[in-house]
């Protein structure tokens, strides 16, 4: 689409800076978007893509830098201001109301009305017109949104953008939730938009998509633009990947102390594990004292895999064995008793009782093991949690404060600490008279032997990460098996002993971490071209 080169520039960002407490998320970013082009934004997690699109959408106001929109210097105070100026953003989590009709969703927030009365017929008619323009006149405008598939919802999101007279539409990983044939349809709509002179900023991790739909590419790394306006079709994969890698943030990884001998019997054996539509025929092992990292993007099935091993989801096929014991599918309680622990991806919604105090969060999985005859031992729990907080260097000290007052890194330590308690070693003195209960308790408390960590450093600032890495490595040195998932390739490579690469629900590659480099893994994660022999 060389025609795009002659199109006027609609948006020009230069020197955009945005800092958050402790993080410089954007550090002098440039971006130039022409009318009618598909401009792709590429970058690893944490490179600043999300912050940049939020600046465009008027959610964040930049601290410095200039933003020229259709030749005029602008700052958007609110998302509404950006929409009004003609910039619409379609986020990954589509902001549609499932219970409203297609037409009502298209005009959500700017309903057509006369004197406060909604003009339904007119809205339906106009929604139809917009959908026709997108080549989807067949979508039923009176149908309730929740009954439509993901792909149709995306079309409605775009129709809403069009109804706002958008001149620039930002799409954040629009293909992440779509099946393969639906992506083709998405591209048709995008081409329809660009043929009308509308500019599209397209964010995706899939290089093949960028080649198919994109015109030019801007690459972000560490909040800076490491390359601008590369031609999307002719720049080699190697070149693109190189510009995304070699991040300057200093990750301090602890040394791998002792290589895990390969004759040690595996602690965790996963064979042929499958869950329909999420992952397929996954097999691997984790040995005690070993950290195994899974590299993969969101949507590759990595979190689902972890939760299935843990028993939070039922598997369709395959087997999970921990130290030879088969873990029945979908039984968390059993898995925990066998010595499995999970630190889930969404700390706040999946792991913590935010209003409750630290010690009750630390002992959430073990309080019944501290108890005798159904009565809890709060003082034992507090002491154990206090010891744990010293070991993990929890800051601030103290186990009585609500966990919501802690920083992300310290909240994560609380979650880790939950699985590291060993109730069997507490208080032998004060219940010598209660030998039965005590021995039963000791028997039940086998302690955690395998930790599953899902994005352990999400939302944790750089300084606290080193701390967490040290803790995780320390656990492995004590003989724990660790299986961790992360979308940050350097983290997987730096921390893990062995790396599994996952893409679209399948394990593509397995190798020792020393034998891999960032570019290779990133390439596998994003395009899989090394295996498919597609060298560009």
């Amino acid at each position: 689409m060389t025609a795009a080169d002659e199109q006027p520039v609609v948006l020009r960002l230069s020197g955009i800076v945005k800092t958050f407490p402790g993080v410089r998320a954007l550090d002098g970013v440039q971006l130039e978007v022409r009318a009618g082009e598909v401009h792709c934004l590429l970058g690893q997690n944490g490179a600043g893509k999300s912050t940049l699109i939020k600046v465009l959408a008027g959610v964040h106001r930049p601290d410095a830098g200039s933003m020229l929109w259709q030749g005029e210097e602008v700052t958007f105070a609110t998302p509404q201001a950006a929409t009004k100026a003609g910039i619409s953003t379609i986020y990954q989590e589509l902001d549609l109301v499932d219970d409203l009709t297609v037409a009502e969703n298209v005009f959500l927030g700017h309903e057509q009305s006369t004197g406060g009365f909604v003009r339904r017929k007119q809205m339906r008619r106009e929604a139809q017109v917009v959908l026709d323009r997108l080549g989807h006149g067949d979508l039923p405008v009176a149908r309730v949104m929740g009954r439509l598939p993901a792909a149709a919802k995306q079309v409605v999101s775009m129709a809403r953008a069009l109804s706002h007279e958008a001149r620039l539409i930002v799409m954040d990983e629009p293909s992440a939730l779509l099946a393969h044939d639906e992506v083709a349809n998405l591209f048709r709509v995008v081409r329809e938009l660009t043929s009308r002179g509308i500019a599209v900023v397209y964010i995706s991790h899939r290089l093949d998509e960028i080649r198919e739909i994109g015109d030019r590419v801007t690459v972000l790394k560490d909040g800076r633009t490491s390359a601008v306006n590369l031609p999307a079709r002719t720049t080699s994969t190697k070149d693109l990947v190189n510009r995304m890698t070699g991040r300057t943030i200093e990750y301090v990884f602890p040394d791998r102390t002792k290589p895990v001998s390969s004759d040690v019997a595996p602690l965790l054996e996963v064979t042929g594990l499958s869950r329909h539509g999420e992952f397929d025929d996954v097999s691997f092992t984790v040995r005690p004292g070993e950290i195994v990292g899974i590299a993969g993007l969101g949507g590759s099935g990595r979190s689902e895999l972890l939760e299935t091993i843990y028993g939070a989801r039922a598997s369709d096929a395959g087997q999970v064995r921990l130290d030879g014991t088969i873990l029945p599918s979908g039984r968390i309680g059993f898995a925990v008793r066998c010595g499995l622990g999970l630190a889930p991806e969404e700390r706040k919604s999946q792991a913590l009782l935010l209003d409750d105090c630290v010690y009750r969060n630390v002992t959430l999985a073990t309080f019944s093991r501290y108890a005798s005859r159904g009565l809890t031992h709060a003082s034992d729990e507090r002491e154990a949690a206090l010891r744990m907080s010293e070991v993990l260097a929890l800051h601030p000290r103290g186990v009585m404060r609500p966990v919501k007052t802690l920083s992300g890194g310290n909240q994560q330590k609380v979650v880790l600490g939950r699985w590291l308690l060993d109730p069997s070693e507490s208080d032998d003195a004060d219940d010598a008279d209660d030998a039965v209960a005590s021995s039963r308790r000791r028997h039940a408390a086998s302690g955690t032997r395998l930790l599953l960590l899902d994005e352990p450093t999400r939302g944790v600032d750089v300084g606290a990460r080193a701390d967490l890495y040290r803790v995780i490595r320390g656990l492995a040195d004590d003989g724990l098996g660790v299986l961790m998932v992360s979308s940050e390739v350097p983290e997987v490579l730096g921390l893990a002993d062995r790396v599994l690469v996952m893409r679209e629900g399948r394990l593509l590659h397995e190798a020792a971490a020393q034998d891999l480099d960032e570019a290779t893994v990133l390439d596998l994660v994003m395009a899989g071209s090394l295996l498919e022999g597609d060298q560009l």
Partner: protein
Amino acid sequence: MTGLTDVAMENESSSLQGGHGPRSSLQQWFRDDASEPVRRNLGLVAVLLVLYAIGAWSRPDIFLHAERLWTNELTVLTLASSVGVIAIGMTFVIISAGIDLSVGALLALASVWCSTVATQQYGVGVMVVTALLVGAIAGLVNGVLIAYGRMAPFIVTLAMMVAARGLAQKISGKTTQVVKVEDITNIAQNTLLGIPWLVLIFAAVAALAWVLLNRTTFGRRTAAIGGNREAARLAGISVRRTEVLIYVLSGLCCGIAAVMVTAQANAGSSDHGNLYELQAIAAAIIGGTVFTGGRGTIVGSVLGVLVFTSITNLFIVNNLAIEYQLIAQGVIIVAAVLIQQFRVGTLRRRKSSP
């Protein structure tokens, strides 16, 4: 693992409240998050004192006369006892982020079932056991439908409320079933050291419930489920089993209250327990149980019931019409929740500023 847990053994003396510093002054205690429920309950005690002051002002002949005051307060406590027992069960339900609308109807059903002519001939023991069993089994049905049928607690207990009231009417034929067993009526008339049995039953249930909520694994599970259901599940807590037990407990409380009400009225009736669900929910809410679950105290709910009945009592001793009493109760509920939100709001503001 040992390498990780050995450290800091000698540091144990560094206080468990560490980070807050020593709690030397009252002021610090007031700023501490952990004391929040206690402060709220002190607030309710203050409300009770204000209600007493109003009583002393409007009816000095009762409220400033030791003997009459004692009699009057025993009346209040007796009045509070059956609703109080139900409010305690309700507290567990609301802490687990549920709701039980069927309590009033379950009370009626249990009261009718335990006072049929057929049951009465077996004597007091069988009557009491029948009431408790009817309550517990109906609670079990609620719990199973909610936990395993994955239905909303509001809907399940709404259906139970209607159906149980209907069943109670069917069994009794809408007549009042007079109790001829003297031991039952004695429950309402006997006293121990001058205190009515009904009040003692309420106190015993409250004490047991306090232990259950604060000192047992069941109480911890209840609070965990209400605080974050998904986190509780992923920590290996059997969420569904606990949920069933919570509704069984609520039903059991209805059975206990049914015996108390039947004894007081000297009869079983399908009209017993009318609007008890609203009073019990209101008492728990006034007592500081958070409607979205996770937090709440037994002491708060007991105080909530007392505030409610004290208002009723004030209106009665002043010969005011019942409609004013209802209006006042509505105002109190709104005021309690507003104060609660205001407190949470100031707490947040304080935290966001360094």
